[in-house]
């Protein structure tokens, strides 16, 4: 099986989708000739032509707004916002337009749009290259929100997202692009080529939207995580020796309540983890859902580990980033409670 980094897997997903369907077009800032600042679209313009993969002016509003028009025409745009931190200029088009087009037109017009964005911290990117804005999308009816944690999923989820008839926010944890990252920033980085989830089948396959995956089975406590935090949670389990069951949500909305509830009912304890700021983060929804569905199984309060409620700092990156030590403490607390 080919081994791919997450960048290669994402590129391959677009390649496969463009190869199968002429209506798939890819565009964004620097994605055409250059192939994207993270090189996720490298080679696509050469292969499919400038009319299927092209550079745009620096206007996230324009990128998403024109993509919505293209979707209404019948194309399937898969656009890149250079960093998730730069999605806000397009927020109105996403929330007021993409998310509601099918509903408000009673299906006459639809919006089969994918918005890819690098998300999350861990690269000393400061306030504007580190944010995790997923909760600003999960609150919006009509959007699906996906966060892969590895190359295998990334490719399958991205193909599924492109084939999905509705708008999908596709957040790519940039700290995972070149290798898994478990939050031990002081240890050498290993590449995806050494990781089983870096084995990525060639050609077409999908990972269905809305299905979580148990990444590590465990008896003691359920960890709900996605993206980079899946790896951090694994490290925390290893570091603490706590037998955590780690659920990789993969899709935040629609969420996979069956998998979540089954795990928590089994373990009786739950810790939710994300990089985004704590207050009103998606972790709040998960915590609320868990206690609504598993109240009588819970032996401890649902814990949350998240980014602090501050802008993402530069120098204090590792004080901010919810690493394995913090997650480990939360697991221990859940066990003690």
């Amino acid at each position, binding site marked *: 099986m080919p081994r791919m980094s997450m960048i290669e897997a994402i590129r391959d997903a677009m390649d496969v989708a463009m190869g199968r369907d002429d209506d798939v*077009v890819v565009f964004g800032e620097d994605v055409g000739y250059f192939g994207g600042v993270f090189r996720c679209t490298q080679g696509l313009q050469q292969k499919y032509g400038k*009319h*299927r993969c092209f550079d*745009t*002016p620096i*206007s996230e*509003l*324009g990128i998403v*707004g*024109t*993509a*919505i*028009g*293209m979707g*209404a*025409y*019948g*194309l399937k745009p898969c656009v890149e916002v250079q960093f998730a931190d730069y999605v806000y*200029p397009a927020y*109105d*088009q996403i929330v*007021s*337009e993409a998310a509601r*087009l*099918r*509903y*408000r*037109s*009673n*299906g*006459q*017009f*639809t919006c089969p749009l994918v918005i890819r964005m690098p998300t999350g911290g861990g690269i000393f990117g400061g306030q504007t290259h580190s944010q995790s804005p997923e909760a600003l999308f999960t609150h919006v*009816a*009509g959007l*699906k929100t996906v966060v892969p944690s590895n190359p295998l999923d990334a490719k399958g989820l991205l193909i599924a997202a492109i084939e*999905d*008839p*509705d708008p999908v926010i596709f957040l790519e944890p940039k700290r995972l692009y070149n290798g898994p990252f478990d939050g031990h920033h002081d240890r050498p980085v290993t590449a995806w080529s050494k990781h089983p989830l870096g084995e990525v089948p060639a050609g077409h396959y999908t990972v269905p939207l*809305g299905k979580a995956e148990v990444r590590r089975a465990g008896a003691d406590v359920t960890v709900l995580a996605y993206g980079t935090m899946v790896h951090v949670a694994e490290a925390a389990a290893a570091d603490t020796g706590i037998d955590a069951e780690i659920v990789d949500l993969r899709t935040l*909305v*629609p*969420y996979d*309540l*069956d998998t979540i509830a089954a795990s928590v009912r089994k373990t009786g304890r739950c810790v939710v983890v994300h990089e985004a700021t704590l207050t009103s983060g998606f972790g709040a929804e998960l915590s609320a859902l868990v206690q609504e569905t598993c109240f009588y199984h819970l032996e401890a309060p649902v814990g949350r580990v998240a980014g602090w409620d501050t802008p993402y700092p530069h120098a204090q990156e590792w004080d901010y980033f919810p690493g394995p030590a913090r997650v480990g403490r939360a697991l221990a607390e859940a066990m003690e409670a």
Partner: protein
Amino acid sequence: MTDAAPLRFHVPEPEFRPGDTPDFSQVAIPKAGSVRRPEVDADPEAIRDLAFSIIRVLNRNGEAVGPWAGLLSDEELATGLRDMMLLRTFDKRMLMAQRQGKTSFYMQHMGEEAVSAAFRKALMPGDMNFPTYRQAGLLIAGGYPMVEMMNQIYSNEADPLKGRQLPVLYSSRDYGFFSLSGNLGTQFVQAVGWAMASAIKGDSKIAVGWIGDGSTAESDFHAALVFASTYKAPVVLNIVNNQWAISTYQGIARGGSGTFAARGLGFGIPALRVDGNDYLAVHAVAKWAAERARRNLGPTLIEHVTYRVGAHSTSDDPSAYRPKAESDAWPLGDPVLRLKNHLIARELWSEERHKQAEAEILDTVIAAQKEAESHGTLHSGGRPSARDMFEGVFAEMPAHLRRQRQDAGV
């Protein structure tokens, strides 16, 4: 070298406020027929004067004059008059229905009927409009059933949008009318995207964007011009300058620029101003711009100069911010009257036939209204179900929404 005088804050003001006597005699209105008609492939720089003038065809005597005249057959002209009369009657009835509590809200076109009704006739099947709420003439002139519009306005059981949308926020893919948004401006850049898609596919269809004078201040306007300019998108971008946003006159959005059309010049986009109350002029300019788009010559920006005679919406009372007589003083006249006079001048029409047509049209509209009301109105009779409310958020209903529908007991 610097002036010791303190800085001053400048806020533009309309010339006339309630209590003033409006007088537009200073407004320069070029004579009908006086503005040239360039080739469609003219260099935008060479025709920049057209962004500061007004293309007009119908003169005071009801004659069609000049290089933009002569495109419409007698029958097409008669149809145009009928379309505008239909729209005006439709508006009257729906305004009344709103006052009777049969719906929550309405927006009329009074004074602006020519803009959308005439433009529509320059389009081909498959072209797509991205309208605002004040272009129902696109539907009427495009033959969309009035009863469907009413069903939408009434949010009744036959509402094609299942009660989900505010009245007048129509949608009809088949009639080239993109789903209306309540958010100003968003459609303008979407139109450009649709046009880009058509070009990407090597198709021949064009897109048409619509925006109000006030809404040109929104970001989508800029993005639309940037993308249209860069990709030479086959799109016609229309600004309907009806002199007012809600209580805010056009000078607040326009600022120090002479016209809204001038905005296009900063992008190398040919820009024309047209007498929006002149059915023939609007149609001729629309044809010109549509041809540019179809011939791969790129976008055109058109400013339609018109006047919003009525209130902004049924929630508005313009007497609080402008003189009552302002619309009478407005120098471009009534589009219906002007086309009517043209037809009479050409002996294709008469006062009697007009009266007769008015009566017929009223009957038609009332008949449609009766039919629509048989399906219910907002607060009585047939209505969309609560179940409909949960449908169509996604192509397939996700589990959490199914649970919520169940909770709702519907």
